[in-house]
């Protein structure tokens, strides 16, 4: 296809006319050129209706040429991957693109839901608050939910790759219009590292859409020269088609980078986080529409957008146009259309007086100018057919004649330009309505930010360039050390949109609706209603009418809403206040924000030193506190339960090998090491002899148990603290915090060594025998190496630290070797241990073994409410001399109460029934069912052949042998409360 549409002009536009791109729109095959946006291509092909509105499903056409677009939000599919709500005005045309309209049925040209438009009188703002109460909201909700929602969830395989990037720079310039370009240029000339970010694919901003010369030269040549110098500078980073959407504290900004979204190898989106010393916002301005009856018809377009399509894309918005305005600026649209050969039926100007030059220009072209007139109503369904023009009173509130209908297919509207202050506001900048400029202007900001160009109401090209240049110089030279002081936006370059007179709304004829928010279908009468019901505060108005809450965030409706509100309340706009703009300035893809950090990239899975061995030996790896650990090792034909039981039996009857490397290890060394640990542990530390190991509890200051483990005395000034695996980092930090912040005078050094040492634990009667097979300088004999002691030496030539401690109740040694030697030692132990029937043990069996012993598992058997008295450590605390973390809290009456939930064991009485952790112990027989505690650990004990459990029970210590009712998911079983020690209570096995 060579033709790219009936509305494409013979020449003009910055397109590659030699390259045609074909695409489909709602099934129709169309074509455009390289350089087109989806919107310009649709217009070129004479497509008038592109979407349906949110609430009334009215036909809507392309309204703007930029990110403010409220109508043309389409579903775009590029090689199989569909994305909803794409702004046609921002999406470059891509070969083979499949485009469909959303939120309409059966088609965008005929939408059944249009019925809501005819019932609009019943659907004023907040109608749902007044109705749907009977019988209940649920009766109507699902139907209403189906009507709501603009797009539909993307389908098809999504090949988009997302990446996060970071950037630091001295000066960040947002927006590459003429103001931003000159700011970046001057800043880089002054030697600063500059980053220039532009949301458009091309640099130049509005200047790309105008033929107005700059500084006596064509805007193109001016831009070309500046961009040339910027590209040449190694100081300058330029990001195109990158949208700065978030402005956070300390001058941190975020941006969505779509420059490679049509990358040949598949779409790529980047999320940039930019930290800038100084920020210059050159974010431009957004033209605002006029309000009149049926101002939402296809064919009605912002005047500046009409020029944009004309000059940048060589597209005529229509064949016969009317220009409606309250300022001189829009006259350019009339002139440019006329000069391009498009008929201009009339210029309808709300003002009494028009600047001489433009009037002269108009006369020269023979264009009809109707002063003190407004478009008051329009006709047409899928395309605009005519507009009703009336003479109006000078204040704009009354009609002065019966008007005439002027036929046209395009209506270009303008009520002046409004600065894009969203990012400025996000930065904490205050904005205010300026009556003389008739727009919202930046006021002052606490962050290191400057705002220039149209964004600062500097609408004249030369003043925008001048103020941009000055800001660039100042930013580059501003002293870095200085404290950001609230910085006022400079006002000396400000110039109003030429001769604007803020008549924004035509007098209302009959009850015809005047649209304020096109996307959410909010009309002027909705705002009047809100005011009538006293939702007159800006925040209330916004929420009650939902004006400005649609996906365009009110970029073309907020100001008009304010002016209607001021009209009905009689307060001037300045007094109404504005709503604070929040991130995001434009919607940002979730995937980009996350940088595709899914699966293992979401949270690092940590691997143990002998990981490979476990993987190659059928280990079932589960996540335990971030570590990938074997839950059990499956043998042929086994399921988990069978494997776990087998592993438990192996330890009790023979020998088990278990990797416990994640076990936290912290060395404490120094003159005051013991004194320090004595203040940390509930237990007595100072009395521990070298070579000895002791079990200890750590509390927080509120007396709650936070961790347990053993600590060993290597030498009088050298201790080794073991923490639970899940708490390794936390406790290391905890100790450091107490040392640095509370007791810096204590002379000691803390050194976490968790990852240096792998821990392989042997458990079982023949553990000693196996170790004695190894050449070693450690005497493993029972006499020389008793339970709860520590030895350092070599095993099979390897440096090793051995603690004789037991989590299983069996004779057990924890062998620590340098992590890189763990796998070898593991294999050696497996080989030499074969004769003893050694078996690798997973964590689940390990936990059952400790359950059989009734050993505490902090985090399972305790929660954030458990104190050591509940666990029966009262006597030990009484013996302890001196303060320790949390001790004072234990002295409160509430902490000493014997009615607290205390640590006990449970045995199921009901034969054949199980016991699960998470079940509750309830008062029974129940006068009123009440929980007295809960089962914290439970499982089947292969050794004892029945279900056992541990739990926390009110006054439990005094209730041994009592029979209780255990409740789980409505079922109950009887259980007996016992001391928490089911197997080998005297500890012969582990002490032997």
């Amino acid at each position, binding site marked *: 296809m060579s033709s790219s549409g009936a509305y494409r002009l013979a020449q003009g536009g910055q397109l590659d006319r030699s390259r045609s791109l074909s695409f489909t729109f709602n099934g129709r095959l169309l074509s455009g050129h390289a350089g087109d946006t989806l919107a310009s291509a649709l217009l070129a092909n004479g497509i008038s209706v592109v979407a349906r509105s949110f609430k009334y499903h009215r036909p809507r056409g392309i309204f703007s040429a930029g990110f403010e677009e409220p109508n043309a939000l389409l579903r775009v599919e590029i090689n199989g991957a569909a994305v909803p709500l794409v702004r046609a005005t921002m999406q470059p045309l891509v070969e083979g693109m499949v485009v469909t309209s959303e939120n309409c049925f059966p088609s965008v040209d005929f939408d059944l839901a249009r019925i809501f438009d005819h019932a609009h009188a019943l659907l004023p703002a907040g109608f749902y608050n007044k109705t749907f109460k009977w019988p209940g909201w649920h009766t109507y909700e699902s139907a209403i939910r189906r009507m709501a929602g603009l797009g539909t969830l993307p389908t098809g395989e999504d090949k988009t790759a997302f990446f996060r990037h970071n950037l630091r720079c001295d000066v960040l310039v947002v927006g590459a219009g003429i103001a931003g370009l000159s700011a970046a240029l001057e800043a880089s000339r002054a030697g600063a590292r500059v980053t220039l970010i532009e949301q458009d694919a091309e640099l130049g901003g509005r200047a790309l859409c105008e033929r107005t010369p700059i500084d006596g030269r064509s805007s193109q040549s001016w831009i070309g020269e500046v961009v040339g110098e910027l590209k040449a500078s190694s100081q300058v980073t330029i990001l195109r088609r990158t949208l700065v959407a978030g402005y956070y504290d300390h001058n941190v900004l975020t941006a969505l980078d779509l420059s490679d979204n049509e*990358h040949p190898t598949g779409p790529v989106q980047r999320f940039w986080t930019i930290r800038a010393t100084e920020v210059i916002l050159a974010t431009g301005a957004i033209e605002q529409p006029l309000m009149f009856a049926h101002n939402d018809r296809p064919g009605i377009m912002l005047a500046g957008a009409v020029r944009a399509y004309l000059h940048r894309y060589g597209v005529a918005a229509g064949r016969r146009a009317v220009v409606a305005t309250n300022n001189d600026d829009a006259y350019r649209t009339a002139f440019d259309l006329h000069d391009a050969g498009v008929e201009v039926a009339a210029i309808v100007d709300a003002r009494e007086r028009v600047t001489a030059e433009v009037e002269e220009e108009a006369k020269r072209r023979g264009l009809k100018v109707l002063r003190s007139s407004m478009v008051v109503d329009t006709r047409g369904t899928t395309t605009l057919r005519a507009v009703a023009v009336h003479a109006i009173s000078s204040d704009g509130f009354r009609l002065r004649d019966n008007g005439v209908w002027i036929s046209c297919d395009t209506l270009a509207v303008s009520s002046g330009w409004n600065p894009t202050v969203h990012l400025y506001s996000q930065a904490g900048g205050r904005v205010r309505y300026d009556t003389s400029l008739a727009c919202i202007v930046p006021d002052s900001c606490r962050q290191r930010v400057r705002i220039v160009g149209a964004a600062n109401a500097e609408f004249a090209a030369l003043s925008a360039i001048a103020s941009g240049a000055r800001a660039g110089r100042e930013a580059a030279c501003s002293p870095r050390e200085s404290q950001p002081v609230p910085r006022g936006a400079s006002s000396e370059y400000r110039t109003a949109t030429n001769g604007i007179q803020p008549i924004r709304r035509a007098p209302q004829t009959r009850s015809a609706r005047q649209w304020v928010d096109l996307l959410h279908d909010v009309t002027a009468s909705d705002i009047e209603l809100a005011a009538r019901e006293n939702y007159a505060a800006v925040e209330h108005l916004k929420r009650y009418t939902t004006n400005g809450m649609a996906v365009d965030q009110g970029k073309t409706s907020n100001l008009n809403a304010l002016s209607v509100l001021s009209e009905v309340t009689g307060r001037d706009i300045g007094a109404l206040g504005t709503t604070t703009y929040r991130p995001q300035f434009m919607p940002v893809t979730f995937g980009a924000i996350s940088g595709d950090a899914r699966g293992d990239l979401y949270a690092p899975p940590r691997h143990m030193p002998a990981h490979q061995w476990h993987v190659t030996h059928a280990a079932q790896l589960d996540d335990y506190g971030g570590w990938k650990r074997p839950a059990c090792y499956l043998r042929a034909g086994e399921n988990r339960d069978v494997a776990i039981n087998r592993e438990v039996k192996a330890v009790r009857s023979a020998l088990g090998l278990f990797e416990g490397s994640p076990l936290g290890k912290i060395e404490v060394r120094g003159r005051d090491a013991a004194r320090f640990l004595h203040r940390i542990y509930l237990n007595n530390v100072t009395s521990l002899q070298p070579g000895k190991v002791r079990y200890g509890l750590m509390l927080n200051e509120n007396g709650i148990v936070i961790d347990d483990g053993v600590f060993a005395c290597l030498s009088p000034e050298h201790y080794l603290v073991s923490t639970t695996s899940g708490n390794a980092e936390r406790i290391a930090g905890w100790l450091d915090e107490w040392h640095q912040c509370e007791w810096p005078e204590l002379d000691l050094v803390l050194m976490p060594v968790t990852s240096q040492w792998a821990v392989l634990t042997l458990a079982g009667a023949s553990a000693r025998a196996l170790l004695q097979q190894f050449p070693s300088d450690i005497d493993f004999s029972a006499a020389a190496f008793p339970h709860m002691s520590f030895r350092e030496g070599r095993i099979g030539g390897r440096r090793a630290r051995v603690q004789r401690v037991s989590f299983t109740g069996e004779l057990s040694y924890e062998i620590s070797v340098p*992590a890189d030697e763990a796998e070898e030692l593991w294999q050696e132990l497996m080989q030499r241990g074969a004769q003893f029937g050694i078996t690798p043990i997973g964590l689940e069996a390990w936990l059952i073994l400790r359950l059989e012993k009734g050993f505490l598992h902090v985090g399972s058997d305790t929660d954030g409410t458990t104190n050591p008295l509940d666990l029966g450590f009262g006597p030990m605390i009484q013996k302890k001399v001196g303060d320790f973390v949390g001790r004072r809290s234990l002295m409160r009456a509430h902490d000493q109460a014997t009615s607290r939930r205390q640590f006990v064991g449970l045995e199921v009485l009901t034969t054949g029934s199980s016991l699960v952790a998470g079940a509750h112990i309830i008062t029974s027989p129940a006068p009123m069912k009440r929980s007295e505690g809960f089962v914290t650990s439970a499982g089947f004990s292969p050794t004892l052949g029945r279900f056992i459990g541990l739990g926390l029970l009110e006054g439990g210590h005094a209730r041994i042998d009592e029979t209780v009712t255990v409740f789980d998911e409505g079922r109950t079983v009887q259980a007996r409360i016992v001391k928490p020690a089911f197997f080998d209570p005297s500890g012969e096995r582990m002490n032997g």
Partner: protein
Amino acid sequence: MAKHLVEFDAHSRRAKVRLRTGMSVIQEATRRGLPGPLEAKTTGEMTALWLGPDQWLLLSDHLSAEKLIAMCATEFAGLSHHAVDVSAGLSCATVDGERAPTLLSMGASIDWSAQCIRARFAAVPVVAHRHANTSFDLYYDRSLREYLRQWMCHSLRDPLLTETSCRSSR
């Protein structure tokens, strides 16, 4: 070429010792030739990286960890300090090439021009030693190797790292 940008399991035989002193000893430490903030210092067969005002990482491809620890013991005799072998606990990856800073900046927004940086990179703690303009040694906890490898692979798929010029030249 991006695929050579990152190499894992580098310098696996390198001896690594972590030294920490009491805060009272800091001046002593610097007097004994240990590097100051964000610096690395090579003296003889040992390179010392600054980890914090009271911490250093001592590296050597020739001296054993025991030897390095012994050196500390003599240097700091009588002074509050502790030196431990972390050779097995720390792994090393090299990031080397003109794209190295781009790749590294994807993992953390910090000034990569310093000689020695201890930071949060790709959400995990690393120590980066910049020994030439764009060559870095990254030291990280051995348990995180697989994670970091995956992270690097993902990041290296960005055309920014594979294409020589991907921006202004449209």
